[in-house]
């Protein structure tokens, strides 16, 4: 399996903590497409847009942004990071991604998740009490739609499908479907049992934090009769590739701290992330992918060694990173980090084989 490196965004609309400026949604949609274009030109493998239903993100309809990105790019894979499948109609999800697949000559991909943000549930009339059942059923339907057409299917949460013709079909053979997992052991186990690729969302903490989750995922896959070694695992994590170690930390810190304060509430208030805590997260033993190109290379290789991952998707714009700095980091990731990591991992795999 070739190692893939990509970027993802939530389309943040955040007041700049340094200049005090609030970007307009119009500016941010254009910037999002520009990020995809620069990532594509820099040779990155994946571009992802997350789904959030709030004024401070432009990603409530990620498929539309991905369709626009399809027109602006040539090679990069276009994914959702993630599609909140629990509050979606899988038929519509398939139709939209199949359309993106046709527009992009087979570059569409779905990362289906339960949703760590829950705004979409009341918006689309779903009950949070059905959180687990909704995801299980909708994932089942989505996989069946991918598998065959026409389809007869019935479940609890939508009208049955009788010999339903669901079109268009994928551009190529299929559309990859991953499952986004936030680190809960049960999600990892269910994903392993289904034999689906797992995209693990990491936030903060030690590099080794999710060893157990990945172990359980692979063990469950094996138990269910899947070849665990053939199943791709991805980490989706925050980071920033700077010119130097110091410049990367200085550039990322104010925005990441702002993003954390606005998205990680306790008692209704955001938590101020102290610089010292941030710096600790950037150390070699911690998971945050921030640093010079060489530091990012080292850490990605450490992740690969530890978890046997096949893909890393980095979110570099959390907290409203200004576009100029964001694009520079995408460029560095694509041209300075990715080629070295791919080459090194290929070399290691050849030695192992």
């Amino acid at each position: 399996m070739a190692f893939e490196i990509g970027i993802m965004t939530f389309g943040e609309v955040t007041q700049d903590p340094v200049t005090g400026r609030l970007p307009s949604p119009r500016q941010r949609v254009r910037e999002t497409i520009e990020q995809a274009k620069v990532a594509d030109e820099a040779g990155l493998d994946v571009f992802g847009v997350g789904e959030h239903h709030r004024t401070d993100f432009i990603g409530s309809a990620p498929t539309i942004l991905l369709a626009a990105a399809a027109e602006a790019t040539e090679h990069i894979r276009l994914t959702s990071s993630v599609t909140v499948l629990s509050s979606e109609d899988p038929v519509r999800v398939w139709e939209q991604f199949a359309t993106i697949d046709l527009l992009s000559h087979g570059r569409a991909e779905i990362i289906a998740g339960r949703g760590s943000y829950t705004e979409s549930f009341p918006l689309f009339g779903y009950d949070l009490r059905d959180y687990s059942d909704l995801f299980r059923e909708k994932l089942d339907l989505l996989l069946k739609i991918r598998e065959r057409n026409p389809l007869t299917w019935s479940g609890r949460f939508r009208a049955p499908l009788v010999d339903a013709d669901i079109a268009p079909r994928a551009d190529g053979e299929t559309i990859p479907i991953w499952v986004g997992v936030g680190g809960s052991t049960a999600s990892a186990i269910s994903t392993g049992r289904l034999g689906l690729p797992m995209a693990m969302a990491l936030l903060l903490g030690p590099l080794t934090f999710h060893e157990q989750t990945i172990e359980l995922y692979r063990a469950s896959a094996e138990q269910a009769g899947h070849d665990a070694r053939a199943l791709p695992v991805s980490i989706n994590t925050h980071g920033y590739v700077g010119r130097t170690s110091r410049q990367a930390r200085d550039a990322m810190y104010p925005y990441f701290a702002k993003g954390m304060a606005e998205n990680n509430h306790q008692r209704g208030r955001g938590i101020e992330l102290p610089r010292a805590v941030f710096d600790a997260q950037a150390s070699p033993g911690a998971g945050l992918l921030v640093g010079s190109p060489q530091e990012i290379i080292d850490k990605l290789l450490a992740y690969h060694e530890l978890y046997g991952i096949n893909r890393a998707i980095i979110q570099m714009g959390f907290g409203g990173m200004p576009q100029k700095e964001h694009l520079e980091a995408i460029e560095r990731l694509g041209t300075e980090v990715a080629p070295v990591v791919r080459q090194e991992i290929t070399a290691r795999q050849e030695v192992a084989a």
Partner: protein
Amino acid sequence: MTVTNPPVVDAGPGIPTAGAVLRVVVVNGSPSRRSKTLGLADAVLDTLGKMLPIDVSRVDVYRLGPGFTAATERDDVTPDVEAMLRLAEDADLLIAAAPVYRGSYPGMFKHFFDLVDQYALANTLVLLAATGGGEHHALVLEHAMRPLFAFFQALTVPVAIFASSGDFDGVTLLNPRVHGRIEMALADVLDLLKSRATGTRATADS
């Protein structure tokens, strides 16, 4: 649920075992109809049922109604609630299962045991099980539940079982480490039952 496997416990000659079935009573402290707490209790019962012939009853304390909630003393309860209390008091193995609510077991769970006779559970085997939003709740077993049964002079099983939300898909327990913990707890239960069935006691039963 009655499981009719041959008994694993060999009581030896002279001790009657024919038809011996372990009366297991789950006291379920969850207010929800479908709950992780019941999911955990079911995982325990499935494992136990494979080891021994068991007869399972369940008391859902949040479903006992006003005949229970309005009672402040044992004499106040309605006959159906009285039957439920007797059931728990006569168990061979009591499984006390509760979710963490406001840092402890829920109020109705305590209310049930407030109505249980002070000495009815003396030396009764009690297995403790709890569920919570995260691992930081795990010590509810030791700091809230075990002292409650210490009051009753019950024999709590040394290994108590905790599971977090993240261990479940809906209400189905998935984490094999929790299943391992269940196996360990029940192995101890089996040992205790075996020594009760075959061993000599320090003081004779009257």
